[in-house]
């Protein structure tokens, strides 16, 4: 009986809610954030809802990135899709391929408030067409940097301000750390993203043909070139000598750095909040190292993170609401606050300038390293981003092959060749599915 009564209450409340909110247009926003980030998203949504009375956004957490994308896809197939869906950067090609399932944000956001040139090129580039139209709104974007434990360097007799801008210099420091008895001089998070995808962009060499997939679905992987092979071979050597410790496919390595076990870490700039709250030592944020002598390096690094997609199949008034919300998220105040709270990159230059004016970078040295690294050079065809189908699976393949290098089972060339061959098969399947 009790469950029956409960069911009846639920039915009444769900049927009554739309009545109460008849005056405003309600839209659904599905995202992948929990914890502190989840609270900050909820705060943004609340601020928007209170700032006007025409629209109401309902934010719902749908699991991690993969689960949120799956939920969106399943909902679309059932005709129950949300208005705005958060999709991680590797899902970009999947979303783009779904013509008829998505509505480009430049159409949804069009109006007085929308200026496509206000967005930072290197950030929005990942989500724009080759002719510069924005398909989704970058929401949280970060880029890899080098994290340095200053205390550990001093302890090993190394000047903590030593130049670590090139891998050649890092190599020398790794030697010194190993000699001083460190069991884990260097570790990394997100190996494919940092040591292949960003490595390629940073050295202005292609990760895949057809402008990294931007120019067509007939793209083929190309990360088995000399620059990438040389880098992976060097890391394999470090792994063999115990100077590079592999901790896992995701960001397991970050914990080793925060605990003070590994003095050097390559990890996303968005690791800032976690490192700042946990690290019991003085740390530095440094630009990602590059190989001195490679022509064009350092170019710029590319982003990781997620963007917001507007989904097809809703009423015009609801797209108006979605457009208003997305424009609100792009406003300088909201962006500057998001950038400072989370360590994610600002999506507009204005938000970056505002943060600077507010004195945030001076109070928190190193927080602008990522912004500079992204924006110093105008992106080239090799450093605009990646647009590859089945990219989540391709990253899985890269993880497997890199593990073979770290354990000494394969040399760098063989592993990368194999990853390219296997990944290309997936790209061909994706191409056929999308035609």
């Amino acid at each position, binding site marked *: 009986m009790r469950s029956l009564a409960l069911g009846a209450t639920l039915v009444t409340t769900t049927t009554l809610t739309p009545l109460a909110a008849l005056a405003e247009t309600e839209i659904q926003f599905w995202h992948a954030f929990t914890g502190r980030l989840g609270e900050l998203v909820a705060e943004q949504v609340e601020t928007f809802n209170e700032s006007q009375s025409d629209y109401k956004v309902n934010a719902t957490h749908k699991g991690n990135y993969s689960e949120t994308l799956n939920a969106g*896809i399943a909902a679309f197939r059932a005709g129950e899709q949300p208005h705005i869906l958060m999709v991680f950067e590797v899902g970009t090609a999947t979303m783009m391929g779904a013509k008829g399932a998505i509505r480009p944000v430049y159409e949804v956001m069009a109006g007085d408030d929308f200026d496509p040139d206000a967005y930072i090129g290197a950030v929005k580039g990942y989500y724009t067409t080759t002719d510069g139209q924005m398909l989704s709104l970058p929401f949280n974007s970060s880029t890899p940097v080098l994290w340095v434990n200053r205390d550990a360097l001093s302890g090993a007799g190394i000047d903590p301000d030593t130049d670590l801008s090139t891998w050649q210099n890092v190599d020398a420091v790794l030697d010194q750390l190993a000699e001083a008895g460190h069991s884990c001089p260097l570790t990394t998070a997100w190996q494919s993203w940092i040591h292949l995808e960003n490595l390629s962009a940073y050295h202005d060499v292609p990760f895949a043909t057809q402008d990294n997939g931007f120019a067509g679905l007939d793209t083929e992987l190309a990360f088995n070139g000399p620059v990438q092979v040389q880098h992976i071979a060097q890391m394999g050597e470090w792994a063999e000598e115990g100077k590079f410790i*592999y901790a896992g496919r995701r960001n397991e390595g970050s914990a080793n750095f925060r605990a003070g076990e590994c003095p050097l870490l390559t990890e996303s700039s968005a690791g800032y909040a976690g490192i700042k709250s946990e690290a019991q030592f003085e740390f530095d944020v440094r630009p990602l190292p590059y190989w001195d002598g490679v022509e064009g390096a350092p170019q710029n690094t590319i982003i990781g993170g997620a963007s917001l997609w507007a989904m097809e199949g809703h009423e015009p008034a609801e797209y108006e609401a979605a457009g208003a919300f997305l424009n609100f998220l792009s406003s300088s105040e909201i962006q500057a606050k998001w950038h400072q709270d989370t360590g994610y990159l600002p999506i507009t230059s204005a938000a970056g300038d505002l943060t600077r004016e507010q004195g945030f970078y001076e109070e928190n040295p190193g927080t602008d390293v990522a912004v500079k690294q992204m924006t110093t050079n105008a992106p080239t065809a090799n450093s605009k981003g990646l647009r590859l189908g089945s990219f989540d699976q391709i990253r899985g393949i890269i993880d*497997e092959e890199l*593990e073979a290098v770290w354990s000494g089972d394969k040399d760098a060339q063989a592993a990368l060749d194999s990853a390219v061959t296997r990944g290309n098969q997936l790209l061909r399947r994706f191409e056929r*599915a999308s035609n």
Partner: protein
Amino acid sequence: MGAGDRPLYPRMEKRVTFKGWLLPLCLIAPQVFISAVFFFYPAGQAVWQSLFIPDPFGLSSQFVGLENFEYLLGDPFYRASFITTAIFSTLVTLAAMIPALFLAVMADRLVKSAGVYRTLLIWPYAVAPAVAGVLWLFMFNTRVGVVAWYLGQLGYDWNHVLNEGEAMGLVVVASAWGRISYNFLFFFAALQAVPRSIIEAAAIDGARFWRRFFTIVLPLLSPTTFFLLVVNIVYAFFETFGVIHTITSGGPQQATTILVYKVFSDGFVGQDLGSSAAQSVILLVVVGLLTVLQFKYVEKRVHY
């Protein structure tokens, strides 16, 4: 058929003969309905989908015939995953059944507080596979894991992140752990059903405990053992992807990529529904064949 065909002494079974067909049809209808809705319909869908390469959103799909199967079977990494699956399933089945039988025999001997032991031994079954995965992962975490730390103290450098054998061992233990409880329940119940008089007679003849166990108890348990063998193999084949997803994600390299994990990751991570459907059809055929083989050859050695 004449009356003479009937055996003179009918077997000691209750047999009911229905008149007409309506009542028997009604009686099996629920089972047929459930099988149709939860097995035949989805299995049919999987077979149908395995002939296409669809896009994730269901906006378009291309008929490709058997090409998905060709693609899979031509992939050396997919073929290698059959061997990984065979090793994994064998180890999980053994690791889930042998300790369960041992514990059941021990619990069966208890006079005092058997109920407490029984309850405690059943507990792990209540833990969801993915949660069990996280528990084991924490114990063996290369950095903060308790077990990994003790192993380090003993001079053993545990690293399942890169060592393939250790990764396999870890997912086998994590998968088998919860199943031990399930198997324990069945073995324990079966042991209770072994007639005391036979055991006592053997004891009077001078047979010691383990001798009685191997010559009398184990053969009498064979129907239960056979049932558990089938059920555990099916479990190892189908229900272990949660554990693998949380502990190793199929790595290092492809050391723990079993067939069902690949179905899950290609379908739900990669959105390659055509390949995922084809893989589940292959898996269905493999497990079907395995079960037929078990009934044909292993069941002959079972005494009911």
